[in-house]
């Protein structure tokens, strides 16, 4: 992969105006797939399954199989459209997008093309400084996901250089809503931040609607970021690139920043931008050229003859509208008051992208202050070190369990951090890690006293000093005891006991 020349971000912004656009794919968490009654691997609480065990005939394109629309997917799509401020089409229809690819069983994707279910909306996005921005939505349409390819034989697991590939159709037919924005102007130097905030807002909306698991790291929510630059003062839009495979909020921000810098360097050097798909590489923090747009993109769309138009009853639309949860902005203000956080405390939570996690942790029984401490502290630290989203590391349920263990004295802070590491490593729940690794605080005084007596016996000079009133000398004994207990003791209690034994 050739190394791209980048222009400094500030200089790029001085010379060019960035125009953004996003296509966000949301996997709906219905029980079954978009067009088949096979179980949906993106369903709420779905466990990972063996390959090709969640497949109905139509998902793998068997001859004679027919698609039938999932009513719940339609309801979810309408709710999402309404939450995006869109109009809901009284009649929309599916089309076939024809192209050959081995992850696509029928070799066409059923999608909505000229008649999407939802169109013309907008989303209020809150930025880090608390200011608001309106992102215009062009459309939200229903479609189906493709299967999954595993590339074998290449060095990197990437498609290039692979010797062969394996195909699993479990994901084929998972219901998707694709949300397409209109061009976003005026983003300026905040473009990367806006990108991240927009995707976070979409994530918050689908979570509040309860229509998607919305885990970016699992591909429940996927963002394609379109970026183009135009020289200051120019009216016409520049050529855009579409960056795919951006699987975390952090990456969205970085990818947009990277594309602005890369395109600016090319334009400044007198070059031109190729209209192409680019792939984001999490490991290197760069994008690489994919397929240029060409006449191979002749998808030969035509109305899907196997499906009837979708005509939701007006009563259904009104029912779903009435059931919409409050908007994320309103909801946040209410949460902030409920939790008793200051403006800046709350903004830190939102900016770290852990509001939903925090909320769930509190819902599981943790105190707001404790939940905030963990999510913005140790968990965020690990996430930043690894370059992933905090929410992908550990579940809110496990965090609340961890907090409960520290609250009732089973774990010290230090032990709790250790337990967290193991939970993040996938060793199970905190309770399980504590039991399996024996990390519990030793609260049995008998064991502590035995260790203290042994330490005191080994350091008669220290014992004497303590008895002489030099209490600070106790530190050496406490250290020895803690070491003997492999850290699994409450240091304050050890200190109390040391003084008690020394004066006995």
């Amino acid at each position, binding site marked *: 992969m050739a190394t791209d020349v980048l222009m400094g971000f500030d200089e790029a912004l001085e010379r060019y105006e960035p125009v953004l656009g996003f296509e966000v794919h949301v996997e709906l968490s219905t029980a*079954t797939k978009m067009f088949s*009654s096979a*179980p949906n691997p993106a369903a709420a609480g779905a466990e990972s399954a063996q*390959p090709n065990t969640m497949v*109905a*005939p139509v998902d793998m394109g068997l001859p004679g199989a027919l698609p039938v629309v999932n009513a719940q997917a339609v309801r979810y799509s309408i709710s999402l459209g309404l939450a995006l401020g869109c109009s809901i089409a009284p009649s929309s229809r599916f089309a076939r997008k024809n192209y050959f690819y081995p992850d696509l069983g029928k070799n066409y994707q059923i999608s909505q093309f000229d008649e999407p279910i939802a169109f013309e909306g907008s989303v209020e996005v809150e930025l880090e400084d608390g200011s608001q921005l309106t992102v215009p939505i062009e459309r939200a349409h229903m479609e189906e996901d493709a299967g999954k390819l595993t590339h074998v034989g290449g060095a990197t697991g990437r498609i290039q250089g692979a010797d*062969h*590939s394996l195909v699993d159709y479990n994901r084929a037919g998972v219901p998707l809503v694709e949300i397409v924005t209109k061009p976003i102007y005026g983003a300026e130097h905040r473009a990367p931040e806006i990108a991240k905030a927009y995707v976070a807002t979409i994530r918050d909306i689908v979570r509040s609607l309860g229509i998607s698991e919305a885990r970016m790291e699992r591909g429940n929510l996927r963002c394609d970021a379109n970026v183009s630059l135009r020289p200051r003062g120019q009216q016409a839009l520049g050529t855009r690139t579409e960056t795919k495979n951006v699987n975390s909020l952090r990456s969205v921000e970085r990818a947009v920043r990277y594309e602005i810098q890369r395109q600016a360097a090319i334009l400044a050097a007198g070059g031109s931008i190729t209209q192409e*798909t680019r792939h984001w590489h999490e490991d290197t923090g760069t994008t690489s050229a994919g397929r240029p747009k060409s*006449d191979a993109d002749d998808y030969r769309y035509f109305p899907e003859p196997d499906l009837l138009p979708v005509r939701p009853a007006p009563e259904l639309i009104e029912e779903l509208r009435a059931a919409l949860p409050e908007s994320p902005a309103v909801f946040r203000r209410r949460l902030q008051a409920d939790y008793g956080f200051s403006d800046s405390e709350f903004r830190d939570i939102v900016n770290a992208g852990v509001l939903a996690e925090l909320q769930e942790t509190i819902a599981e029984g943790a105190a707001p202050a404790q939940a905030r401490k963990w999510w913005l502290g140790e968990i965020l630290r690990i996430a930043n070190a690894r370059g992933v989203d905090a929410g992908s590391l550990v579940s809110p349920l496990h965090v609340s369990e961890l907090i409960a263990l520290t609250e009732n004295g089973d774990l010290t802070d230090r032990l709790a951090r250790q337990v967290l590491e193991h939970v993040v490593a996938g060793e199970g729940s905190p309770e399980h890690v504590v039991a399996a690794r024996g990390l519990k605080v030793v609260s049995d005084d008998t064991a502590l006293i035995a260790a203290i007596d042994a330490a005191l016996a080994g350091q008669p000079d220290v014992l004497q000093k303590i008895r002489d009133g030099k209490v600070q000398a106790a530190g050496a004994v406490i250290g020895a005891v803690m070491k003997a207990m492999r850290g699994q003791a409450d240091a304050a209690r050890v200190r109390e006991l040391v003084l008690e034994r020394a004066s006995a």
Partner: protein
Amino acid sequence: MPDAPAVITVADVQHLAGLSRIALSAEEVEHLAGELTQIVESVRRVQQVVTPDVPATSHPLPLEGAPRPDVVGLVLTQEQVLSGAPAARDGRFVVPAILGEEQ
């Protein structure tokens, strides 16, 4: 385009064969170019008989159907899924190297 005679060239057929993933022989391409020109010349008169005010019909009947309830039903076993597979391994289908990229 509508009034010019429809001619399907050899290059057109090659392009269409690529889009439809059929490795036609040179002879087939040649032959099809002639045949398709003849067929298209005949069927293209549909353009002359319609006016813009005529709506397009994609379903023969204006049907109303209820969508499917979201309940798990027909699902194949892995064995059934792979029963016709030309090549399979570890519960998955095997294909040779892929040149193109995901859409």
